[in-house]
């Protein structure tokens, strides 16, 4: 069966190193850290007291007061990123068949702050249930997709994807496949997360997943470095407008890149640890290459999951070597989480944007904060340390892996007719 082609025609983001795509790219290219001491709440009793927070965000600049109360922060970030991407793609909603326009949006947890506040209110009361009628529709992790559809009138396929830190990569892959199959012509896709709060930080702290390097908070997200001690929590959203190629061509749309393949797998191994040999990661990357009909030699850049946890980074590099063989030493690898922190369910979307912009600019954003070689990571791999590197990038692969053993890899290719 011949699949329809899928291209990217719009981008939008709000994340710890950029409140727009342009600002995000500038900071990626310059290797800027988004980490700072936590300002969203008093974290003085927490083991980790820093995070990569979104900066200078005032919801009232984007929403009226009544709207704000009904939107969890994760949905607010979603709508802000979507707004930028929709303006960017310049779709004429008046002339679109909106039943062929869908929304697939990922979030690992959804409105965890809303859950926290509502349950706290109940726990502090006398047992009388006084939950807000907006509690559930504000919290659930599919509601961002619902809000987006209401805002733009998109009546095609509409749902949320949940696979922890792979959530928005799964969203992008699903959207790509539905366009390929003709179920829709346009998708708003991506993901958002907003869990820099007491429950999010406390929960991940107890898992010993987060860096506790409070003294060196600015450089604590240090993928592949021997002294890495956990991930740094990030937050925000990334949005991609995916469009069927002929549809984009007919309206003269600007095309960033082509989405050519998606791979998905399950580790079937452990709740939170990745398989030591990267079994699931290998299967996911191989499936993506097959799906894209590309050979390992066709990939010039891998935006790795690379969270900066002691146990996660090693199996991923091993998996890359297994899949790419000798070519693993010729391509560039980088973890942009060294700058953005880990955006959890939104990671796949903001890293997809980094991969696409890397192709557009023919520049690989760096892995910053690396101080010391880890003997368990092959030093022949080009991890793009410290500084961005200029090179030919024909195609880029973006990996994301989630707790539960969910793996997803997406391949973007430089566009040519």
């Amino acid at each position, binding site marked *: 069966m011949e699949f329809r082609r899928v291209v990217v025609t719009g981008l939008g983001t709000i994340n710890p190193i950029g409140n727009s795509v342009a600002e995000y790219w500038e900071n990626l290219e310059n290797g800027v850290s988004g980490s700072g001491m936590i300002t969203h709440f008093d974290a003085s009793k927490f083991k980790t007291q820093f995070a990569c927070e979104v900066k200078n965000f005032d919801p009232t600049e984007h929403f*009226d*007061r*009544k*709207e704000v*109360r009904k939107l969890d922060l994760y949905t607010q970030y979603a709508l802000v990123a979507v707004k930028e991407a929709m303006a960017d793609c310049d779709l004429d909603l008046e002339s679109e068949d909106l039943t062929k326009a869908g929304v697939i949006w990922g979030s690992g947890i959804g409105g965890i702050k809303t859950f926290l506040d509502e349950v706290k209110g109940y726990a502090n009361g006398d047992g009388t249930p*006084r939950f*807000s*009628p*907006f509690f559930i*529709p504000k919290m659930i992790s599919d509601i961002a997709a619902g809000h987006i559809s209401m805002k733009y009138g998109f009546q095609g396929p509409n749902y949320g994807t949940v696979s922890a830190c792979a959530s928005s990569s799964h969203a992008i892959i699903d959207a790509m496949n539905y366009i390929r199959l003709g179920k829709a012509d346009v998708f708003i896709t991506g993901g958002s997360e907003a869990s820099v709060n007491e429950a999010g930080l406390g929960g991940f702290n107890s898992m010993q997943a987060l860096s506790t390097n409070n003294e060196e908070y600015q450089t604590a997200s240090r993928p592949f470095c021997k002294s890495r001690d956990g991930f740094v929590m990030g937050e925000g959203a990334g949005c991609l407008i995916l469009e069927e190629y002929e549809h984009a061509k007919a309206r003269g749309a600007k095309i960033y890149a082509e989405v050519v393949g998606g791979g998905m797998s399950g580790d079937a191994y452990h709740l939170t640890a990745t398989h030591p040999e990267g079994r699931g990661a290998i299967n996911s990357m191989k499936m993506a290459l097959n799906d894209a009909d590309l050979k390992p030699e066709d990939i010039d850049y891998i935006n790795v999951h690379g969270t900066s946890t002691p146990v996660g980074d090693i199996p991923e590099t091993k998996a890359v070597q297994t899949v790419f063989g000798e070519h693993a030493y010729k391509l560039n690898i980088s973890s942009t989480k060294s700058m953005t922190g880990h955006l959890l369910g939104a990671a796949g979307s903001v890293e997809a944007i980094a991969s696409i912009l890397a192709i557009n600019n023919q520049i690989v954003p760096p892995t910053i904060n690396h101080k010391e070689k880890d003997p368990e990571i092959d030093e022949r791999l080009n991890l793009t340390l410290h500084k961005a590197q200029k090179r030919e990038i024909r195609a880029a692969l973006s990996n994301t892996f989630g707790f539960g053993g969910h793996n997803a890899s997406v391949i973007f290719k430089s566009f040519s007719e």
Partner: protein
Amino acid sequence: MSDIASRVKAIIVDKLGVDETEVTPEASFTNDLGADSLDTVELIMEFEKEFNIAIPDDQAENIGTVGDAVSYIEENAK
């Protein structure tokens, strides 16, 4: 304006994001003040909290305007 009426008004302005001048006794929550069914439930809950009363569902159904709310609370608040 009674104390109850002004407190009711303040809650409506806050929850529905409307202008104070729109909150007249005749104003209907859904037809005039832009409330949907969930907003209305929230308003009733806020009235219960503010005035320390319990408004049964079958009574709540009859509270459709600002004036309805003020009268109900005046009659039932302790």
